[in-house]
């Protein structure tokens, strides 16, 4: 058991050294968590192991500047060092979109996805807009019955009138999408993440945004689907679970693997980003398609290699994690 652990550790360290001096600009996957900082001489005390974020894991193409360390004050008043992560506002390794299909005959490749937290992920092919009455009610009219054309917010004016809580009346019954080109290809944001997470005695609630992905995208809380549906709109997501709004540009509402650029060597789920408290967020399932059974209320747990970390929920649940177990840094638009 111990032999295999040390073998794994060696692999981890080799993997880390192999990629530590690269800038990840080639957008290829790197390997496993390094920087475990586990005390080899105090392995019986692994229950309190704290593993901080590793800035080398971020894809350089998603960053506006090199990650640096700066002094910061966390939500609990702790003054500490934080990583300063400035993102471009567009994913380093994938295109943004597509979101809404154009006509009811379009196939799934011409649209993205939709989820309302009900346990379903819907492919936004044209037929979805024909069937939507069955799903949400007879008053849903999202396409022209004569032409088959889907009503899409295809201008910046339309996008900004529809992608907000009080949807303008003329844009109700629309598939809502906003092009990132309206916002110069991405909105820069600065995220401060504690270098060493500071555990809280009681978990704290999540607000609008909760972290940053390794490919440079803001990780948001649940999409406000009740408000969206109340206006007979579908705020389409792309196949990576992201969409664009005027307030913060492109952001993720679900984990669909696009940002899992660090592959775990031990069959653990892959790292996809970091929460504002500095703890890692991993995919929901491990390499064998299994989900852990011992997650806490934040969807987190601890192991010797990764310390405390969380696992994203499924896209169908419209969320990533449940709460913060650590004091948080911050996120703001530049």
């Amino acid at each position, binding site marked *: 058991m111990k032999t295999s652990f040390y073998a794994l550790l060696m692999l981890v360290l080799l993997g880390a050294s192999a990629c530590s001096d690269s800038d990840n600009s080639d957008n290829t996957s790197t390997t496993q968590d390094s920087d475990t900082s586990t005390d080899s001489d105090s392995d019986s005390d692994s229950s309190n192991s704290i593993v901080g974020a590793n800035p080398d894991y971020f894809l350089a193409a998603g960053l506006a500047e090199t990650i640096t360390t700066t002094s910061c004050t966390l939500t609990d008043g702790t003054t500490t060092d934080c990583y300063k992560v400035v993102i471009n506002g567009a994913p380093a390794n994938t295109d943004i979109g597509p979101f809404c299909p154009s006509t009811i005959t379009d196939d799934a490749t011409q649209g993205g996805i939709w989820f*309302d*937290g*009900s*346990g*379903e*992920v819907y492919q936004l092919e044209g037929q979805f807009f024909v069937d939507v*009455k069955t*799903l*949400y*009610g*007879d*008053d*849903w009219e999202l396409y022209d019955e004569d032409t088959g054309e889907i009503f899409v917010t295809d201008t910046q004016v339309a996008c900004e009138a529809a992608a907000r809580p009080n949807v303008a009346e003329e844009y*109700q019954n629309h598939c809502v999408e906003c092009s990132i080109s309206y916002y110069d290809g991405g909105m820069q944001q600065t995220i401060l993440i504690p270098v060493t997470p500071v555990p809280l005695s009681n978990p704290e*609630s*999540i*607000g*609008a945004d909760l972290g940053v992905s390794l490919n440079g995208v803001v990780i948001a*809380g*649940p999409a*406000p*689907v*009740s408000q969206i*549906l*109340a*206006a*007979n709109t579908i705020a389409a997501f792309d196949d990576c679970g992201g969409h664009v709004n005027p307030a913060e540009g492109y952001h993720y509402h679900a*984990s*669909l*693997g696009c940002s899992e650029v660090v592959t775990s060597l031990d069959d653990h789920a892959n790292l996809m980003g970091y929460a504002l408290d500095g703890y890692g967020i991993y*995919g*929901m*399932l*491990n390499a*064998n*398609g*299994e*989900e*852990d*059974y011992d*997650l*806490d*209320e*934040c*969807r987190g747990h601890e192991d010797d290699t990764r310390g405390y970390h969380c696992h994203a*929920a*499924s*896209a*169908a*649940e*419209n*969320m990533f*994690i*449940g*709460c913060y177990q650590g004091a948080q840094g911050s996120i703001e638009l530049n």
Partner: protein
Amino acid sequence: MTSIRVKLGKSLAGTVPLFSLVTLLAMACSTTVLAHSGHIHNEAFEACETKTKGEACSYLVAKTQRYKGSCQVFNLKTLCVRSEPIEYLHAIPDEIEIEVKTDQETAAQLGTVKANNVNAANTPSQ
């Protein structure tokens, strides 16, 4: 449940039919209902309607999947955050409310529970 008392002048009360009053009240008080007459799946919210943050919660999806977790707050709204693997049930159709558990519990005791893919919530029991 909130009750609303409406006082009307004699002339108005005499001329406005009760049906119209009800319609007017509905329009004034519930734009959401008017804008959206269909069913919104709110199970994750409803599971925490009478609970506070941290309390255990569970809800059924498509009558075949049980989600268990605790109530957590997001932007002042409380919803059920799943913390256990999805429990797949064999739902007996409609009126008969008997659910038979699969062998997921046995798997859970071994450490992990199989799920099919990232969108595991979509997949029926195998």
